[in-house]
Each structure stands twice: as structure tokens, then as C-alpha cells.
């Protein structure tokens, strides 16, 4: 049996007091409790950033890789053992900056992998620079006169990029986020859950209050997640920030279309190559 305490490693989280990462962590644990799969079936892959410290706090099989590269590690693990529930925990710099190409490519593959992105619009661990999702004009240590670039829109990219489950949550609403994470894990195919996560130390613009003034729940506005065009319109809304499920479709998973019938870790390793050698005569 999994309970939220059994998912704690015993290392107390060292995030700043009030950080959105606490509720994302709690929401992940709550979703695992509700899903009630054997704990060893879960495999978490973390990137580098404040989010990645979670590798130390959660008691589940985990791998903290390189900045920007958790997705290909997850893909390799899923291709090797498709019985694992593979969840990637990443950040906005990790997934949409350094790892952008992996983000775009995993979506067209539709692996049954869930990607949870801590999106705080700032680099926290490196003490406050503009991230790929920072708004134009954002002032930070690396952009003292204001950011000249425009932000990445991960939801719009995901809808266009072929993701089969695209959602956004808010660290200020853990009950809602828990449900999204459960839906993402239950979804057969690639799921993106972008999570607004206020950084209380380095982002004085995009605060809890700032988000609360702008977000609304898609399900309360009668949004139909099967409608891709409508999902894209919602993703591109200029002033409001919808949360909930933008888009969902059923499609074949990558790992089920490879020539191997079962997970390769379950294939016998002893291999007779005499026929192969004969063909070279």
C-alpha cells in the first residue's frame, strides 16, 4: 500500500518557504496514492533545476540526469521496459530551453510518458535569470533593462507538435493538479502537464496573486478537449491563462509499435548468431 508518507525519502525538501514546488510534489504523491500501483512500477526521471531536487525527497525509482535531457533518458527506459510508468519531472528552462528539441520530438512519437513541467518563468537554481517562458520586458539579473524576446508558449507548441494529452495546472490549486497528473498518467500516450509554479524568491512579477487574477478553469467554460482548433484558440488567448485539459486524443503509442512483442529487458539475452554469420559467406 502506498500512502503519502511512504513516498517521502526522509530528506526534507529544501525549497524556499512558499515555493510552488511543495504543492507539485504533494500533488504527485497524492496522485500516486490514488493510482495505487505497486511503487516499484513507477520510474521518475528528473532534469536539473529546483524541481530536480525532488529526486532526493521522493522514495520511488528515480534518475536525475542532465539539464535539458530527462526526456531521452525516459524514452530509453520506456523502450527497454514498457511496464514501467515513466514520469518526467522537469522545469521551464530544462524542458523548453536546453531540452526544447527533445520536447518537440517526444510529442511526435507518442510514448506513454507523462511530462510535468514546473513553469515559474525564471531560473531559480542559478539565482534569477529570464527563462524561456518569461514575459517580454521581464527584468532579471541577466536582463536588467527588460527581456527583448517573447515567451515560448508550451501549450500551443504541444497541440501543434502532436501531443495527445495537453494540460496545465497551477501550484496554487493542488486538488485540481492532482487530478490532472492522474489523468496524464492514465492517458495512454504522451502527456504534457505544464504547471504554473510561482517562484517566491526570484520572480516578483508572476506571483500567486498574479496567476489567480488571470487563470480560469477550462472545464468550467464548457471547453471540449477533443476539439483541436478550439484547444489552440484557448492556448493563444492573450490576457487570460486557462488551466485544465486543453486537448486529448487517443492514438497508438510508440513503444507498442516496435517489432518486439514484449519489453526487451524480458527477452533472453543469449543470442545465437550462426545464421547471421552464415549469411556473410
Amino acid at each position: 500500500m502506498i500512502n503519502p508518507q511512504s513516498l517521502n525519502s526522509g530528506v526534507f525538501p529544501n525549497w524556499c518557504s512558499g515555493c510552488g514546488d511543495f504543492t507539485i510534489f504533494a500533488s504527485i504523491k497524492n496522485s500516486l496514492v490514488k493510482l495505487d500501483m505497486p511503487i516499484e512500477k513507477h520510474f521518475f526521471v528528473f532534469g536539473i533545476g529546483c524541481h530536480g531536487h525532488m529526486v532526493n525527497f521522493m522514495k520511488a525509482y528515480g534518475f536525475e540526469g542532465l539539464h535539458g535531457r530527462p526526456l531521452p533518458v525516459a524514452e530509453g527506459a520506456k523502450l527497454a521496459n514498457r511496464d514501467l510508468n515513466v514520469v518526467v519531472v522537469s522545469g521551464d528552462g530544462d524542458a523548453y530551453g536546453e531540452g526544447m528539441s527533445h520536447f518537440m520530438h517526444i510529442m511526435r512519437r507518442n510514448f506513454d510518458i507523462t511530462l510535468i513541467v514546473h513553469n515559474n518563468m525564471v531560473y531559480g537554481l542559478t539565482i534569477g535569470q529570464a527563462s524561456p517562458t518569461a514575459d517580454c520586458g521581464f527584468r532579471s539579473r541577466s536582463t536588467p533593462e527588460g527581456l527583448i524576446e517573447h515567451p515560448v508558449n508550451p501549450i500551443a507548441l504541444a497541440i501543434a507538435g502532436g501531443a495527445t494529452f495537453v494540460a496545465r495546472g497551477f501550484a496554487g490549486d493542488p486538488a485540481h493538479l492532482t487530478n490532472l497528473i492522474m489523468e496524464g498518467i492514465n492517458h495512454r500516450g504522451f502527456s504534457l502537464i505544464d504547471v504554473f509554479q510561482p517562484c517566491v524568491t526570484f520572480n516578483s512579477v508572476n506571483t500567486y496573486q498574479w496567476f489567480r487574477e488571470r487563470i480560469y478553469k477550462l472545464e468550467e467554460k464548457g471547453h471540449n478537449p477533443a476539439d483541436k482548433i478550439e484547444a489552440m484558440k484557448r492556448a493563444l488567448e492573450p490576457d487570460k491563462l486557462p488551466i485544465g485539459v486543453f486537448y486529448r486524443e487517443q492514438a497508438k503509442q510508440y513503444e507498442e509499435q516496435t517489432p518486439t512483442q514484449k519489453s526487451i529487458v524480458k527477452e533472453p539475452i543469449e543470442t545465437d548468431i550462426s545464421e547471421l554469420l552464415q549469411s556473410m559467406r
Partner: protein
Amino acid sequence: MKTQWKIGGEAGFGIMTAGQIFSKACTRGGLNCFGYTEYPSLIRGGHNTYQTTVSEDPVGGPMRMVDVLVALNKETVTLHSEELSEGAAIIYDPDKVQIRPDEAAKAILVPVTFSKIALETAGQELMSNNVALGASIAVYDYEIDLLLSVIKDQFRGKGAEVVSKNLAAARAGYDYVRQKLPGPYKAKLVKTKKAPNMLMSGNEAVGAGAIAAGCKFYAGYPMTPTSSLLHFMAANERKYRLVVKQAEDEISVINMAIGAGFAGARSMVATSGGGFCLMTEGYGLAGMTETPVVIVMGMRGGPSTGLPTWTEQADLKFLLNAAHGEFPRIVLTPGDMEELFYSTMKAFNLAEKYQTPVIIITDKHMAESHASLGRLDAKAIPIERGELASENTAGYKRYKITDSGVSPRALPGQPGNIFVANSDEHDETGISTEDSGMRIGMMNKRMRKLQHAAKEIDGALLLGPKRADITLVGWGSTKGAISDAMRLLEAEGIKANHLYITAASPFPAEAVGKALKPRKPKLMVELNFSGQMASVIREKTGVEIKNRLLKYDGRPFYPEEICAEVKKVLGR
């Protein structure tokens, strides 16, 4: 006798296919051969060649002189006339190529109307190279049935009509020479009583070794000279129940392989220098997380895009130092197709036993050349998976500090052994730490693995006579040219031996130091500008090898060049 056949023409003429067919016709007659190809980095046009060096004795690689030259275009004659031996034959199409008498003073001309014969017998000019192959067999007075059997197998998948057209064209080329230009010609090929040999490229040898070793995951991004390894693995994916993944870039390739290796599948990637530049951070990640993965590094001319389709040995020092920080780096440097096969099998064992990435260095000269091989025994290298944790190990610690440095490995999905792996420095359970004592303990633990691995890696061999006039020092693919040169030198009364380095890390310092006796003439033979292995030898043993034969024009050594340099060093 030893002879060399060469075919040249534009890209798109089927030069490589023709060359492989000729090589295979030789190996099916029990002969030894080495097939070497040169081509520019483009798809159509440009000058392509394939040369097959054949002998009843072992063949290490190409030589300079050509006995039979097949010229599918004029450029072949112009570019290669100086390579023609006294009395060499030039087989060409007089309707397409005009040869001036001064271009072929020493040669015998064999005009065969390839195009016309191809059109008459097969209805397609494209079959010209089959006509040329048939004509070559006749000039060598070799067995046409061996050629026909190879052609039959080569085109079997394309249907009976294609097979019969190819056969008819080859047969017609053979008959044309027998009837109209019967010779005699200088070089002959004679079938031996030995069983047929295999013909394998370096990439195929690595691929076959990987499959035999139970490699289940292969990721790649196309890059010369290892693209054909990706093709080989993909072609065998279904039959041998592997997963082969072409990823978006080499960063993804190495990280995918780490994910699969971490989950318990034997994993391999292959690339060339540029791709490995992108992999270096992942290489260090595998070292830090103690994840087994095999990396095949096919060198080509660098830096940057460099000489994409040519060979070089200039990545050695890069590979020995790739990625920041220190971790146990195992770097193997096999030197021929047979060694590539066995080294690949062994690399998987080393990667899993010592839980660290293993690099196999190869190069264009091995990866894309073909060599004859007698027998390969996959059972010679039994699969060893190293220490694995059993389920529900009480108080399991993934990174437990042990005397050997190896900690039993658990796999995600296994009940009761939950742990995390961490690219940050970590404690025995995988949790991040910056504690001074733990950092030192973990560094020492990881680095200890290299000392133990060194005991089972024979990194240096002394080939040839124990007492010699000169010791040639080489590593990797120069092995073939050096052994061919030793045979030539022996015929001239010069005794040479070969200190041959098969692992660059852990470096066989003791064996190398012992073999390099002071006051004994030595010659370092390397395909790079600065003598990289000579520099490693000096660093590790204190021995400086002053005589260096270095080459960096993208071409492999010819044995003749090595002989000439040896004579210079010895003052003969």
C-alpha cells in the same frame, strides 16, 4: 601471390556493390582479401573507387600497386595510372573511354564494350559493372561460378528477373574476354581447398558482436562512417528482438541509451567525432550514475566536418579526456574486423561488470572496409552481467562503497530495492551530497573500478619476432598495414616486430614500457598530425619515441610507405 584489383567510376555507378561482389567471389574461393573504398561526400558524381587486395596469405589492407584496373570512366585512368604495376591490365569500355599510349605505357589494355554488352544481354546500361566483373574474373583466370553465386545471392531479394539479367551481363563480360582477349595476363587467382571465408565490414563485425553479446537497445543518428552500423542493426531488429531508435540528435542518442541501460537492457550507440562531441556530457552522466553503455566511435578526418568520408586516428586524446571531471574511462582500440567482433562482445561485459561506459574506437578504414574472416566463435566470450541485486535486498544501497568499487545493481521495476541515481555527487543511497568525506569516498570507489578492469584487459601485444631490428608501434587500424609491411620487410631480410596497443584506457603502461627497450630502434606509426599515441606513451611510461611516421591526408597507410620509412630509420 598477392594481387590488387581496383574499380573506379562516378558515384551512382554501383562501384561499392561491384567491389563487394568481387571481394566476396574471392572469399568464397577460400582466399583472403581486404576491400577498401574511397569516395567523396556526395551522392552523385565525383570519383569513387573500391580496391580488393587478395592473397592466399593473410591480407592486412590495401597496397599501392594495382594489377587489374577497371575504369568505368576516363578519370579512373588519369588518377590511378601511376599505381599500375608492370604489366597490369586496364579493363575499360572503348566506346566511353579513350586511353592515350603514354597513360598506360606499362599496362595491357583490355577493351570490353561494357555498355553495349550490358544493353544486348540485360537491356540496361546500368548492368555495365556486372560486365566489368565478369571480364575481371576472366582476366584473373578465376572461377566464374563463384562470381555468379555471389551475384545470385546479392540480388535474390529483387526477384528472378533481376537476378537473371545480372547473371547474363556478368557471364557475357567473362565470355567476351575469354573469346576475344584471352591474354595471357600477369595476375591469376586460384581457388583454394579451404572452406569459404566470411566477408565483413568493420561495422558489420561490431553489429554481429553486439547482437551475439545480447545487445537489445541501439540508438543512433546517421553519421559517416558508422551509418551502416545503424542500418545493420535496424535490418536485424525484428529477427533478433532488439529496439533500434534513430533519435533527433546525438545528445538524445546517448541519453536514450543511458535510460535503456539503466532499465537493464544492454545498450549501444555509434557515432563519429562530431557526434561524440555532442555526447560528451552524457558520457560523463553514464560515468557518474554508473550506468553501463557501449559507445562505438568511428573516427574520420577532423576537425569539424573535416574529411567526412576519409580515415584518421586524430580523436584519441579527445576520447581519453572527453567529458568534464574524472570517472573510470574504458577505451578499447581494436585493429581489425575479428578484433572488432570480440572487443564489442567484451565491451558489453566490461560495461556491466564495472558499471561504466565503454568506448570502442574504430575508424573509417575499418568501419567501411571489408575483410575476409575464417571463423568467429561467439561462445569464446561468455556473457557476464556483473553484480546484480536480488529482489527485496534488506537495506539496499545502490552505491555501496565496496573494495572492488562495484556495487550490486538493481533495476527499476524490481520490488524492494528502490533507489535513485543522481548526476550530482551522491551518497551510497543515491541522495545528493556535498560532504567532503562522502565525495572522496565516492570518487575513490568509482576510480577503483578501473584498477580492477585493468586486470582483465590485455592492452598491448608484441606481434612478430621477439628479437627484431626495429619495433613498429601502432594502435587500431594501422595493424593491417604494419603486418603487411612486416611481411615485405622480412622478404628483404629486415626483422621487424609490432608493439600493438589494443586499449588506451586503462593504459597498459607496464607492458608497453617493457617492450620499448632503450637503444632499440622504434618507429611510431599513426594517422594523425601530432603523434597522439606517442604522446600518451610518453606520459604513461616516460619513453619518448622520436621516429614517427605520421599521415593525415585521410588515406590509410600503404605497407610500402612503412617499409620505406623503416629503411630510412635503419639507414639501409
